[in-house]
């Protein structure tokens, strides 16, 4: 099985994000970067499928050279090789991201394209679905389980109201949710090995992708802050406040 899998770099999901005073972006000084948690689930799924069925997992990402550190993490987790497409994160929207990934899919012709269901910075939750439609492939998004059998991926999906199971014929696009698996931590020997694995760099121009955006982010601001409340000392005081002050009971 040949699997293409995304390895997007994001700001540390637990970091406090602050907007620049001029509203042109976020303060990046001192920020750490990690692999998008949903991409980690996708990579774990890809690598364990290759371990089971043979083949190769190829990690792909889009960004400037500094994202290669995180791409190497995907290699250390077990992907055989990696591809980076050179364009800065703030020059992208979901549509352009998808159009670049579509080109990589067309070049590599994998059996399965695994993506994280959303990136925890932009929070758009669009790219897997866009890629699937652009390629006219079946999609199974928000996967909490994937079984490959008889040329299909049988996927359990976490949806409102319960768990759904659908089957999609390969090649297919699947987006990973957090309950899909527990991503492995790369071992030191694998981290060292990852440094020597092939990493190809491409450009949108070389792929023939027009970099015009459909949706541009034009300003950033901090959300309205909730003003802090009070601490109550007892349950009785809490109930009294809820009843008489907040009128919430």
């Amino acid at each position, binding site marked *: 099985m040949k699997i293409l899998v995304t390895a997007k770099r994001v700001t540390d999901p637990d970091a406090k994000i602050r907007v620049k005073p001029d509203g042109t972006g976020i303060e990046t000084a001192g920020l750490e970067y990690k692999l998008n948690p949903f991409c980690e689930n996708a990579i774990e799924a890809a690598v364990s499928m290759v371990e089971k069925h043979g083949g190769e997992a190829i990690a792909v990402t889009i960004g400037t050279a500094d994202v290669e550190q995180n791409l190497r993490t995907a290699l250390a987790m077990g992907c055989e090789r990696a591809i980076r497409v050179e364009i800065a994160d703030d020059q992208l929207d979901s549509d352009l991201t998808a159009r670049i990934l579509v080109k990589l899919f067309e070049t590599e012709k994998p059996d399965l394209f695994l993506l994280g269901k959303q990136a925890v*910075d932009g929070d758009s939750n669009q790219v897997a679905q*866009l890629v699937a439609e652009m390629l006219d492939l079946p999609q199974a998004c928000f996967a909490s389980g994937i079984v490959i059998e008889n040329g299909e991926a049988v996927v359990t999906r976490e949806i*409102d109201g319960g768990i759904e199971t659908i089957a999609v014929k390969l090649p297919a696009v699947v987006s990973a*949710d957090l309950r899909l698996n527990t991503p492995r931590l790369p071992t030191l020997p694998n981290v060292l090995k990852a440094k020597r694995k092939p990493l190809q760099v491409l450009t949108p121009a070389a792929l023939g992708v027009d970099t015009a955006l459909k949706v541009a982010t034009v300003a950033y601001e901090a959300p309205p802050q909730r003003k802090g409340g009070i601490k109550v000392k007892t349950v009785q005081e809490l109930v009294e406040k809820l009843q008489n002050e907040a009128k919430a009971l």
Partner: protein
Amino acid sequence: MGTTLVIAETFGGKLRKSTFNAVTFAKALAAKTGGDFAIGLLGSGVAGLAGELTGYGAKAVYVADNAGFANYLGGPWAKAVAALADQAGATSVAATSSTFTRDLLPRVAARMGAGMVSEVLSVVDGTKFLRPMWAGNVVATVEVKTPKAVFCVRGTEFDAAQATGGASPVQAVAVAPEDNGKQRYVKFEAVVSSRPDLAEAAVVVAGGRGLKDKAGFAILDPLADLLKAAIGGTRAVVDAGIAPNDLQIGQTGKVIAPQLYIGVALSGAIQHIAGMKASKTIVAINKDPEAPIFSVADYGLVADAFKAVPELVEEIRKIKGV
């Protein structure tokens, strides 16, 4: 100018109330652009629900009732919705964010060649919109550059539209899912609960990892019963299998805004706060006085949940006289 096609969502043969949040968005957009809106209802055996959609000022309610829509599948449905948008002469498609619409709408956008805005918080003008990024720690202004657009709307930011009278014409349309045989529905295992829907409940009681296990989580039941509340949880309790995934509140789960939210034994990670900070009144009960949840709580109680929750139930029973 332009028409927004609002996609109605149904579940178990009923209209989801969240449909009317998207109607409010469509009205807000129409007010900025001088356009109007229509409603699209797709499903199997849904024609009878059309009457519930005619009193909201839509220029038409389009009904595509086809047995092929019995189960949702992204590819076939996206083709149908894009075809309906075309027939309706719609310049944009909108729906309230849910796992159904988040799965469907990007495919519709790709098919229409439209820019798509996820989790719309408000309408700035006809092309600019506010949306959250970084788990709601940033509010971004985004500009749609394409003539057509698709919007996935955050329900908590647009009040459900109220019926205004009038009678939108109901029009049956011959739009069917185009199944290319690449995907099939297998089964659905519903989470059965007698409690209100988490996304719609007026009161929500949420539990965190501090409740330890299923037995611990169950201390929330009497409180939820008493307040007719929905129960929710953090990612941690869902990951641990203590609560089903459908109950996860937060950045990657459900975003809620009840009148009263009571968070029990949860620390208030950024990702959880992203999903509940729009609640009207927030109560936090946690034994750690430094827990971040207290920074957004109107009323914080530093206490052991296993003692405080049963006490809270007793006190509320007293004032309610039950």
